[in-house]
């Protein structure tokens, strides 16, 4: 595909910074109702007229790639097209209320939250869900905090969390943040969890195993039932990283596989525009025994103990039961049983860990997730995973690059082999596609982790494959010179890190410094 990205500005720079367009210094204390000692002496900021503002940001937008511009096959990021109607309902002014409103006066919001809790519980095969975590990693943190609280309440202090080597970096960081020692589990030769290595790793110190299934090279952990048994027998909990849930919609449920805790990246699986890196939302689902530890408050129908089919706490198992957490009979009832006229209330789970967000999480993201699930229904959800997996396999089949392991689901890690994956990626930029995630996971050398999602069709996948293959066939010299058609040529990331300039104030300082140096 022919492609040239817009670029603006003169020879020295791109679109000028706001501060270079207009900047004014004012004295806020002048004429203030506040005494002088409470006010600042000076504030220097840009202020643009509306037409200038519109032009500045329109130009910046044109210097930016997006999923609406073309394929964005970043492995493990699930960059799919996001339907506009969900943005529309998220902007409903009636939904825009303050979080401290009396619950009786925001029944509409509570109805949606309750409905989304139900949908997510059913889709994940979980018993109870919190919507509070504002991102997937925040969901991980919440889930591990719940695990910790559960163990502590059972008088069972455990110090380790096991994480497969191929897992998302957030898993390691989360476990460490929660105060756990991280035990890294090497991958087996087939790219999956090595069951023997797992058996050797679990012990009385194991608080949890954090697992993604399918894993980060798109492989389904076929031994999942055995894995769950090993972890549960040791008294540990099994945590599901929901980053790859898009591959499993309607095909398998983490709860049925023996997972006790999971987070959902609703911005990946159920579509919310990623907004340049966020916001997202990372709801957490748990089995009955852990529901009482979830963040407060949760939503329930008035007069109801919790979720339909959920425990009232009477059959709370303990880790000492040995595997009692496995084998739940999750509610298979109708997830769509919200009825008009129901009223909803907030309640605090009995042994809640407290809060993981100042208020109620990323509301606008939750609205979109709910709208998307309602739009797709069973058939749409099932088809989303079908086409995501079909697309990944079709694309992998078209590549000249080697794709180790398999069979894979929604994503695969091709290897650039002797070539530098990052260079191949820069080459791809000139072909009008966004390259995949590169150099990760480490278990594949020069990995190009590719996830086309369900939103590309046959022709689009073929174009994507051409971009891959042509870049891969380019000479090293050509790749080093790439990209040439983007707003910037190859950016020097090393010097940016060595000599950080993180604001326009820093640019001014370094400019002054070099002028002074030149003057001497």
């Amino acid at each position, binding site marked *: 595909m022919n492609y040239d990205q817009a670029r603006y500005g003169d020879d*020295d720079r*791109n679109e000028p*910074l706001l501060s270079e367009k207009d900047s*004014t210094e*004012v004295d806020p204390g002048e004429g203030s109702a*506040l005494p002088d000692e*409470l006010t600042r002496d000076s504030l220097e*900021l*840009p*202020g643009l007229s*509306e037409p200038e*503002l519109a032009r500045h940001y329109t130009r910046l*937008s044109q*210097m*930016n*790639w997006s*999923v*609406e*511009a073309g394929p964005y096959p970043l492995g493990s990021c699930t960059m799919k*097209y996001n339907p506009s109607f969900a*943005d529309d309902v998220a902007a409903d002014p009636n939904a825009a209320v*303050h979080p401290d*409103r*009396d619950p009786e006066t925001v029944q509409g919001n509570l109805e949606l939250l309750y409905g989304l809790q139900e949908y997510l519980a059913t889709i994940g095969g979980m018993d109870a869900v919190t919507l509070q975590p504002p*991102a997937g*990693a925040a969901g991980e943190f919440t889930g591990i*905090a719940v695990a910790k609280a559960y163990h502590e309440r059972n008088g069972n202090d455990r110090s380790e969390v096991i994480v497969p080597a191929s897992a*998302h970096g957030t898993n390691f*960081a989360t476990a*460490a943040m*929660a105060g756990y020692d*991280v035990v890294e589990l090497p991958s087996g030769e087939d790219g999956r969890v090595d069951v023997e290595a797992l058996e050797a790793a679990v012990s009385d110190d194991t608080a949890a195993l954090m697992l993604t299934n399918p894993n980060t090279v798109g492989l389904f952990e*076929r031994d*999942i039932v055995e894995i769950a048994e090993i972890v549960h027998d040791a008294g540990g909990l099994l945590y599901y990283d929901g980053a790859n849930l898009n591959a499993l919609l309607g095909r398998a449920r983490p709860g049925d596989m023996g997972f006790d805790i999971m987070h959902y990246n609703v911005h990946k699986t159920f579509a919310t525009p990623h907004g*340049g*890196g966020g916001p997202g939302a990372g709801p957490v689902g748990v089995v009955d025994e852990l529901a009482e530890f979830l963040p407060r408050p949760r939503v329930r129908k008035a007069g109801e103990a919790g979720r339909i089919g959920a425990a009232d706490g009477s059959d709370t198992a303990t880790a000492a039961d040995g595997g009692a957490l496995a084998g739940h009979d999750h509610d298979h009832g109708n997830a769509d049983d919200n009825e008009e006229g129901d009223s909803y209330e907030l309640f605090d789970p009995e042994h809640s860990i*407290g809060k993981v967000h*100042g*208020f109620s999480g990323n*509301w*606008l993201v939750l609205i979109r997730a709910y709208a998307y*699930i309602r739009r797709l229904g*069973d*058939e749409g*959800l099932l088809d989303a995973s079908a086409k995501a*997996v*079909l697309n990944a396999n079709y694309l992998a089949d078209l590549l000249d690059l080697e794709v180790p392991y398999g*069979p894979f*689901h929604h994503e695969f890690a091709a290897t650039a082999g002797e070539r530098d994956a990052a260079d191949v990626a820069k080459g791809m*930029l000139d072909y009008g596609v966004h390259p995949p995630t590169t150099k990760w996971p480490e278990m594949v050398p020069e990995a190009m982790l590719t996830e086309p999602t369900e*939103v590309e*069709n*046959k022709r689009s996948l073929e174009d994507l494959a051409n971009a891959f293959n042509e870049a891969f066939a380019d000479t090293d010299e050509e790749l080093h010179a790439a*990209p040439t058609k983007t707003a910037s040529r190859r*950016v020097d*990331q090393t010097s940016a890190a060595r000599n*950080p*300039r*993180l*604001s326009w104030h820093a640019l001014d300082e370094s400019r002054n410094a070099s002028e002074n140096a030149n003057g001497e």
Partner: protein
Amino acid sequence: MSGRSAGASGSPFAPHTADETAAMLDALGVDEEADLFDIPDEVAFDGEFGIPQRGERAVVGDLRETFARNDDLTEFLGRGHYSHYVPAVVDDLSSRSEFLTSYTQYQPEITQGFLQALFEYQSILVELTGLPVANCSMYDAATALAEAALLSDRVRSTSGSTVLVPGDLRDGKRATLDNYVDGSDLSVETYPYDDNTADLDALAELVGEDTAFVYAETPTVTGAIEPDLAAVGDLADEHDALFCVGSDPVALSLLEEPASVGADVVVGEAGVLGLPASYGMGLGLFACREEYLRQVPGRLVGESEDADDRRAFTLTLQTREQHIRKERATSNICTNQAWVALRAAMHAAYLGPDGLVDLAEDCVRDAASVAASLDALDGVEAPLDDRHHFREFTVGVDDAPGVAAGLEEHGFAVHTLDDETLQVCVTDLNVDAADDLVAAFAEVTA
């Protein structure tokens, strides 16, 4: 059947025609998509969630009906979550799909636009806080505070491990902080307020060698402006503890910059710019001194050059981040609030320094004026402290829950703090209804 028909089931956002699907399956040598799934029978699911597929119009209609169940109240609510009028152009520009549907800028060459916008956001925060480093967004004020406390645990040069926070800290912040520090050596303790701001004498007693971190807010949770923030900073400094100030960009447009009173870190809620009322969704502000640069949580954008020596921006210092340093990362943050940060920068640039200061001045004057009107009513006292106020203030009445319920019947929502105390927050969005609120107060308290 070839082509997509209006009645086709499946995902409406998967663009495959039946012919394309058949050709792709054929190329892979399988009969149907289900054959591509490598899931053992014992954990396979039949796909029946019981959720019917609905048309777009039906979903939109349903949700509009759902939200219409919310009561239409004029909110005089604040306590950490504030909304100001967001200019329409901010909605318009930020909704451009090139911003809205893009991802983290892992390939800087093709994402210069968003990188520059985030660099500008960081720069605006640097100016407002007076501190040289600002990250390009965190989840909200509560998580930003919690990350700041964890930063003190990483950088502190003393053996201190106590985090000191106001006893009046909002529950959401305190409970989030408690969770975040649970895995560290830190423990959280409170210092008291006197007249709704820091009790300096009590604080002086509490700060000691074991103090790692002292947190103060201005304005405080009740809208009081700290009269002597520098004194709080001095107490922290005497014991080599980090001094962290909580605020927001509108307040910081007018109030003394935290760096000038000794702040090492500034956190707060930046969503007061750019974010509409959103049921508690936020934008975490985080700025700090340069010496903590390599311990800063979250993402940073820096300036550099490209191969043609043109200015270019890139994510930088990524070795702090979880995808590189894993369990030694400075935080587990991956997804952040980039799009909300973009909106905040747009809103700030739209207002400019004069507009920001005017908005902040209105937050002071309108709160004072509404408080005075309420204070003139029999049986109503406002504010309940001898402080300057920003946006909000406390109100004393005989029967706070009763008055709040009465106000709700008149169409107003205010906070109830205890049996005799309410709290009222005034912004540009509700100031036009302030006279009606005062009239309702008069009627309800009569």
